[in-house]
């Protein structure tokens, strides 16, 4: 049967079991949107293409499925760029579809033309410009395959308007075979054996785990390994939820704003077992001072992550879940870690995470109360900056895919549209966006999207009147010269919420936090909670830039 390119695209998306897509129409997408008009695929019209990309990203992180977003040529496509780069840095499976001008006009500086495959080349796992409708079905099949397998990432398909209108015989390929793309899943048995030996004889081992645990679904295997061998576990920002923080072996997050005990454990460790993490500079601090006595086992599906930042003794390329389950079987006797755990226990007792518990409304308290009133069952999306770090530190994560945050790229404006995507993927979940008064304004237009689609996302603005994280650095390292970090002229967020048709609640007193949160949870639609918090509260502990990670400030109780 003959079909147009537009129809082929939508049919193929259905074959890939796409239930929802996020996007914004435009001139060169008219044929496609005409087909979409009759399609059962749920289409979420965001109010900015960046919102569509982040929503697709949030949907993907919460569900593990491929997120799909769509935008028109030129400015539509360039507006997706931040969202695609965000997904790329955090290995999020995404397929982004962009309209393109007619094939014969490409390169002519046509109206709304941009070299989108050129622009997105360094921020996609792969991209395609479809020049012939006959290639379209195969390209879509490949795109979904590449996005979701190996180390996941965004794949972009640039689709000219004339290709959408051309007809060809449609047959969706059953299988993909790309001669140059065959990710490695099984770890090298010899390497796993060597790793097991090293673990058995270690005295001060630490498991350092990242987003790879969550992506590969290795949380059970990680728990088995940690408990069998009594090895403490620290997670990266993106690894939160991969190991329950209620577990005695949990050290919480490490790095620049990690716990004192996680950072000390890493620095004094004799064996770091890194799984699905990449020794990012926010984790290692000063690299030449990092974990001087430790041997390193590094398990990652992406070979480029191995030995990129630090020297690795036993690299193992492959899937975290498969490798951990084999590793557990290979370990004959657990290492003796009693003395090590005792030492860590002392650090935990001496330097817990803390903040000043007085009568003032402090942002950390808000995060704690979100945890309390939701009984720890919420999915937390965050913006970027202080709000993100407090959300990471003071909520207790126990389940994978419950912390949704832009780690690698650090994209302000990510959290709210991502929360919209999360809510669509997990309709029954309680979804919070922990926001700052700066970040929320970067994509506040998506309030319409939440209202129109009746999505009960709760936005908790930790409103301190500053671009807080930059202000904190100015306070500590630039003599309190607050250059352009004071957010004068913030709007009245309650009125903004109301103008969009959402509910706004302002909270000025600590005593009112809990009741406001409870009230918000009872409301079926989106709610903006405007918490007027202490203005100059800082995120502690903190490793100053360029320092070793055990040289923390603000870490002692």
């Amino acid at each position, binding site marked *: 049967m003959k079909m147009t390119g537009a129809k082929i695209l939508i049919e193929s998306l259905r074959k890939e079991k796409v239930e929802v897509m996020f996007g914004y129409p435009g001139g060169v997408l008219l044929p496609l949107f005409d087909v979409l008009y009759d399609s059962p695929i749920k289409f979420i019209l965001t109010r900015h293409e960046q919102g569509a990309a982040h929503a697709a990203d949030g949907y993907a992180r919460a569900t593990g499925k491929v997120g799909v977003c769509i935008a028109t040529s030129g400015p539509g496509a360039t507006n997706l760029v931040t969202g695609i780069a965000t997904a790329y840095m955090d290995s999020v499976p995404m397929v982004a579809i962009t309209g393109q001008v007619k094939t014969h006009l490409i390169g002519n500086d046509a109206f709304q033309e941009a070299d989108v*495959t*050129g622009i997105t*080349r360094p921020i996609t*796992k792969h991209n395609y410009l479809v020049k012939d409708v006959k290639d379209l079905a195969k390209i879509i099949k490949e795109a979904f395959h590449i996005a979701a397998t190996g180390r996941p990432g965004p794949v972009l398909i640039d689709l000219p308007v004339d290709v959408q209108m051309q007809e060809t015989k449609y047959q969706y390929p059953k299988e993909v075979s790309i001669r*140059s793309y065959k990710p490695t899943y099984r770890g090298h048995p010899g390497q796993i054996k060597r790793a097991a030996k090293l673990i058995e004889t270690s005295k001060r081992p630490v498991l350092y785990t990242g987003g790879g645990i969550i992506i590969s679904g290795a949380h059970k295997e990680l728990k088995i390994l940690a408990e069998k061998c009594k090895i403490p576990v620290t997670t990266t920002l993106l690894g939160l939820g991969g190991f329950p923080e209620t577990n005695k072996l949990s050290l919480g997050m490490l790095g620049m704003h990690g716990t004192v005990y996680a950072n000390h454990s890493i620095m004094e460790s004799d064996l770091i077992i890194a799984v699905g993490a990449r020794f990012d500079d926010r984790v290692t601090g000063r690299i030449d001072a990092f974990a001087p006595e430790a041997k390193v086992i590094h398990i990652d599906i*992406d070979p*480029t992550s*191995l*030995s*990129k930042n630090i020297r690795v003794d036993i690299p193992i390329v492959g899937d975290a879940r498969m490798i951990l389950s084999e590793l557990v079987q290979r370990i004959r006797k657990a290492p003796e870690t009693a003395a090590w755990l005792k030492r860590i226990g002392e650090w935990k007792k001496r330097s817990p995470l803390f903040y000043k518990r007085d009568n003032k409304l402090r942002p950390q308290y808000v995060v704690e109360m979100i945890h309390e009133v939701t009984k720890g069952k919420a999915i937390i999306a965050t913006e970027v900056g202080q709000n993100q770090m407090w959300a990471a530190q003071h909520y207790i994560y126990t389940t994978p895919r419950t912390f949704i945050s832009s780690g690698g790229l650090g994209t302000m404006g990510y959290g709210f549209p991502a929360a919209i995507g999360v809510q669509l993927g997990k309709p029954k979940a309680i979804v919070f966006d922990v926001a700052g008064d700066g970040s929320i304004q970067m994509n506040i237009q998506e309030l319409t999207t939440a209202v129109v689609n009746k999505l009960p996302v709760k936005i908790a603005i930790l409103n301190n009147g500053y671009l807080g994280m930059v202000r904190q650095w100015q306070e500590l390292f630039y003599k309190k010269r607050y250059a352009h970090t004071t957010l004068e002229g913030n709007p009245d967020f309650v009125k903004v919420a109301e103008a969009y048709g959402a509910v706004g609640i302002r909270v000025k007193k600590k005593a009112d936090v809990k009741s406001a949160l409870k009230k918000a949870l009872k409301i079926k639609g989106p709610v903006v909670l405007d918490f007027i918090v202490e203005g100059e509260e800082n995120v502690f502990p903190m490793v100053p830039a360029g320092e070793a990670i055990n040289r923390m400030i603000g870490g002692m109780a």
Partner: protein
Amino acid sequence: MKYTLSVLVENKSGVLAHVAGLFSARGFNIDSLAVGETEDPSISRMTIVGEGDERTMDQVKKQLNKLIDVIKIYDLSRIQFIDRELMLIRVVITPKDRERVIDIVDSVRGASVADVGDQTLTVEATGDQTMVHALIELLRPFGIKEIVRTGKIAMAINNKK
């Protein structure tokens, strides 16, 4: 340390941009890059000569492998190979130098006179890196006006025969 990589890639538009972009984005240096179709028209071969320590080279190879359109990478730094480069070199000559320059060119295997002008003489040369460099040095005293080089291409030595 200089390294030579022979990289098989899909013969599609955008692949060269992808490879070149990777080098610039990650701060790797390229000394030369030569691209051409192979015996299979769907595959191109890139011969990349670069400079970097062991760790950089390791990253270069891994990062290249990560590109979907890269099919296979041969690290020629680790095996024996034959390499050739084609060079055109234009030398300024006076009538009294002409004979000497032609003598030099005749004495070097792989070099020949491609064009003789009023005040210049153009030499073409094909050879490995040592030969190409040697020829440049031999001709330098006469005054080199212009050099055009293709960049190195290389092929592993087939021990199986």
